[in-house]
């Protein structure tokens, strides 16, 4: 079976080693672009959070910490099975490789399932982005009433209690809000911004998980055909690198979105 492999060394490579290293380098450059892609969203997060910390402190309580932590554990386990799968491919253990890829895919599907439950809850409660946001906000979410400081502390620092004296040329800018004094018990303004950030970041991550499931399925089909072995495990290796990066991004998303204090 080993001799039927068609992908020995492509003609533009000197040897298998060079081919393997070139593939890895290409994958890491792709991962660098992925990091920069998510970097834009992390930047948006940082800007909004630094300008409106009260929105993030208030709104993150609507996320389910338990489900978030569960999903973190699920992804970490999937990364582990993926790392084991790469090892199995390198050692030429075909059945083990297929099994481990299957386990990784199952965990990825599990992650999406939990994510789906979370999205459904947000959807039902109207905790959505921009103009779609229509949730009835309480001063404190019913789930965690005791831990909520009802007054967003940053609001007072940020906005003047003095109403604006002049209204400026029409259409140039909107007057700022000046209802801080009486609105002290209510939720902060523009809570939908948090959910826009939440859905964008977790959504783009979710798309990556779906792509990952596709990649891993493809790898599983090829592994069943017996294409991988000690001499040729690069595709599994590279799919693994992608999958681990998806895990890493979630490792940062989880505390940034679910564990705000």
């Amino acid at each position, binding site marked *: 079976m080993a001799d039927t492999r068609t992908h020995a060394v492509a003609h533009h490579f000197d040897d298998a*080693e060079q081919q393997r*290293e070139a593939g*890895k*380098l290409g994958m*890491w*450059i792709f*991962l*660098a672009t992925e*990091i*920069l892609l998510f*970097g*834009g969203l*992390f*930047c948006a997060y*940082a*800007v909004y959070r*630094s*300008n409106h910390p009260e929105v993030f402190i208030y709104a993150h309580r609507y996320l389910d*910490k338990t489900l978030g*932590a569960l999903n973190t*554990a699920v992804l*970490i386990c999937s990364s*582990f099975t993926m*790392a*084991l799968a790469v*090892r199995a491919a*390198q*050692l030429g253990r075909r059945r083990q490789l297929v099994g481990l890829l299957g386990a990784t895919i199952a965990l990825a599907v599990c992650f999406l399932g939990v994510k789906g439950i979370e999205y459904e809850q947000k959807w039902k409660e109207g905790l959505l982005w921009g103009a779609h946001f229509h949730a009835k906000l309480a001063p404190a979410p019913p789930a965690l009433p005791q831990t909520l400081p009802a007054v967003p502390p940053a609001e007072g*620092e*940020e*906005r*003047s209690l003095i109403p*604006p*004296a*002049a*209204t400026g040329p029409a259409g*140039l*800018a909107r*007057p*700022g*809000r*000046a209802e801080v004094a009486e609105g002290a018990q209510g939720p902060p303004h523009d809570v939908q911004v948090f959910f826009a950030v939440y859905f964008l970041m977790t959504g783009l991550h979710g798309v990556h998980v779906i792509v990952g499931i596709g990649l891993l399925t493809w790898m599983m089909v090829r592994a069943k055909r017996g294409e991988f072995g*000690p*001499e040729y*495990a690069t595709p599994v*290796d590279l799919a*693994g*690198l992608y999958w*681990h*990066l998806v*895990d*890493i991004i979630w*490792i*940062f998303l*989880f*505390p*940034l979105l679910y*564990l*705000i*204090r």
Partner: protein
Amino acid sequence: MTEAPDGPVAHAEPAGATHVVPVRVLARVWGALLVLTLLTVAVARVDLGSLNLDLAMLIATVKATLVVLYFMHLRYDRPILAVVFAAALLFVALFVSITLLDTHAYAHNLIPDYGPALPK
């Protein structure tokens, strides 16, 4: 988690096949990642002020480092891959920090007394 024999040996024999990370190392990293996840959830329950964000990011960075070094076997790979990775991180850091500097460089109201002003 120091597997000293693995790293140098892998670099010393570039002619050999790809480095296979031992199961023991992978399992330890897996355990450490799960423990750190529990730790970050536990730490978030305690109010430490602004230290909470720093701690959460520190733990996440440690977790990511473990994944990169062992699961993504960067530790055993050629240094050029680490350079590519570090370059991406550097540019994200530049991007985020310069944008944050910029977003804090403006007054809340460009037209005096128009929008809500910062307290004097």
